[in-house]
């Protein structure tokens, strides 16, 4: 049996195929762009090729992400929010986890979960790019680095600088003026940038009352600077899955498999 999860995010689209025992058969990731259905088609095609199947062989699919409605008719049987999907996906890799922090391209979430990856509470950022991947993209652009490299270089900081603005655009101006100050170490500014993200998202962590162990998912989980800043603030080791960007799609695939089993009275 094959089940599919598709996560159509603002930046990337991921697909995960699972079998009936929840074994991962294939994963794919493509850029979303403006043609969501094309991205979905492409991501599915890559996975199907890996498995040697067609989309018709997939028994049940779940879509998630902001593009989940649009692709529902053509590519999925049902849709769930990223909250439900990230909860399931994190639980798959770390059944002991009781919290998930997902920082995606345009939003961030803190999700409290139970032992089966069910949601017990959540908090999301509102109408603001600060504390999201977009904020880091903008800052990395100023530094002339890619986001991952900026994260690595931030670990060289000795005295992180406070980046206080709550608006991404204003923070950009603030960072530029910090860079032009004589004697300021750019590594300290990079660390300040990551701490700024963590301060914003930590408010969600507190609102959702997350308790350790905590998993980080989403693309920003690959950023060493953000992970370290979280570990410093939360005083706990953050668990990172091997492929944090596919957690949403993985959770969607698990929900697809569970839903199919439930509808057909299978154990």
């Amino acid at each position: 049996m094959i089940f599919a999860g598709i996560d159509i995010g603002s930046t990337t689209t991921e697909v995960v195929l699972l079998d009936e025992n929840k074994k991962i058969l294939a994963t794919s990731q493509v850029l979303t762009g403006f043609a969501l259905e094309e991205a979905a088609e492409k991501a599915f095609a890559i996975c199907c090729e890996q498995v040697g199947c067609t989309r018709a062989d997939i028994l049940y699919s779940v879509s998630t992400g902001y593009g989940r409605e649009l692709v529902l008719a053509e590519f999925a049987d049902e849709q769930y929010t990223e909250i439900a999907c990230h909860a399931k996906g994190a639980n798959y890799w770390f059944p002991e986890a009781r919290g998930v922090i997902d920082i995606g391209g345009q939003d961030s979430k803190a999700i409290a979960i139970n032992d089966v990856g069910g949601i017990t509470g959540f908090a999301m950022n509102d109408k603001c790019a600060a504390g999201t991947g977009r904020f880091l993209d903008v800052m990395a652009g100023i530094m002339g680095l890619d986001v991952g490299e900026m994260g690595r270089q931030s670990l060289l900081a000795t005295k992180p600088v406070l980046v206080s603005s709550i608006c991404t655009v204003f923070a950009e101006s603030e960072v530029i003026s910090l860079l032009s100050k004589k004697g300021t170490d750019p590594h300290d500014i990079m660390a300040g940038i990551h701490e700024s993200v963590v301060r914003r998202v930590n408010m969600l962590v507190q609102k959702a009352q997350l308790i350790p162990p905590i998993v980080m998912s989403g693309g920003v989980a690959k950023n060493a600077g953000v992970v370290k800043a979280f570990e410093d603030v939360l005083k706990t080791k953050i668990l990172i899955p091997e492929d944090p960007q596919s957690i949403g799609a993985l959770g969607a695939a698990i929900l697809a498999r569970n839903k199919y089993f439930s509808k057909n009275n299978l154990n």
Partner: protein
Amino acid sequence: MASTVNRIKTTTKISPMLDEYYASMAHFDCVAWCMGPSGYELMNGAGVSCFQAESSSARIAGGQAATPFIEYGQARGVSPDMCSYAKINLGLVLAELDERWDMIDERYRLNPPDLVVAGNICPSMMQWAHVLGQIYHVPVFILDYPFCYDSDLDVLRDNAKYIREQLENLKEFLLKCSGQKEFRGETLMNQMAACREMDFYQQNIGEMLRTVPAPASFIDNAFSMTPAISMKNEKAANFYKEFMEEMIERVKTGTSSISNERYRIMWRGNFPWFKIGFLSRLLAKYDALLVSGCYGTHIHQDSPANRLIPPDGFDLKDPIWGMACFGLGGGYVSNYEDKWKSEFVSQIENFSIDAVIIQAPHTCRPWTLTSRELCQRVEDTYGIPCIVLEADHTDPAYFNDAQVETRIKALLETVDARREEKARKAAAETDEFDF
């Protein structure tokens, strides 16, 4: 499959009824612009017509016409963080003064005020009233509603007496403005009789929402609040009577508001008036229904001040006392514990609530303050999920469809997860006792 929405048919009468009401105000020589609880019941008896400014802004927002006025006002210096009811009104006022008739629909044209009356349930009301007074060079009367730090009956009675004295002063002030020699007591009595009748119908409408599945949505109820706030006359009373009768018929025939009610939601706070249809359809899509709330019906909640009114309704021989008690029982000046009891406890415990949505309107501080703490208290006290939704009552700039949908769906997914957990625990307990 998504539920279909079965809207209360009577509510389709609101729009034409209000259009007629606003047009009729042109016949009065003296017009009062009112915001907050401002003693409207006294107005007609003193020869003054009442233009309820918040209702007007809500109507404009509901007509998807708010943004141009908001932007016009902001371009002229109105703060973006100001109450959006005020922003719309002030933007419209400025547009009219600039003779920008090209941007103003005939239906929204204003009858300039001869006076302004405001109940100071929040600082915005007072500032808004004073700004209007300055723009139009008209007198402003502010009714002071004391904050009820205490729910002791004697303290509340003293507060109501204080309000009553002000209402008596307001009566004289209105006569002075209109030039009418004597106050027409019979007009006030008729309005208060209509209010008492409306109160009876609205209470019954609210009670019937306890039925599972509910025969109407709380959105039907809240959407229908304007006649009670603005009109307060026989026509408004007849409207609520018809609404109630339609509900009774639905209860008798087992007709529900949505075809498959799986989640019963309580909504706390004011509404995004420009998104009523969107919210209604969105919730129905996920088989969810708003069955209770406090906005617009807060006079019928278990507000401690309502103990000042006899169980069979306020005394028609002393209508101003009834007005004073209602103003105090409106919830805006209730202390935190009283708010908790009247807005949450009685609803969650009586309406079979599965989850709570607290709207935190960006431009309304009274409805935003303590929302996070109240949310946590709902979770801790009742074990049901609660979210704070950041939106706004009339400014579309602070509402994002996709974000709202994601949060509401995630709330329902949380309800599902808790139901599953409950079932798992119950199954585990049963297994324990299986021999």
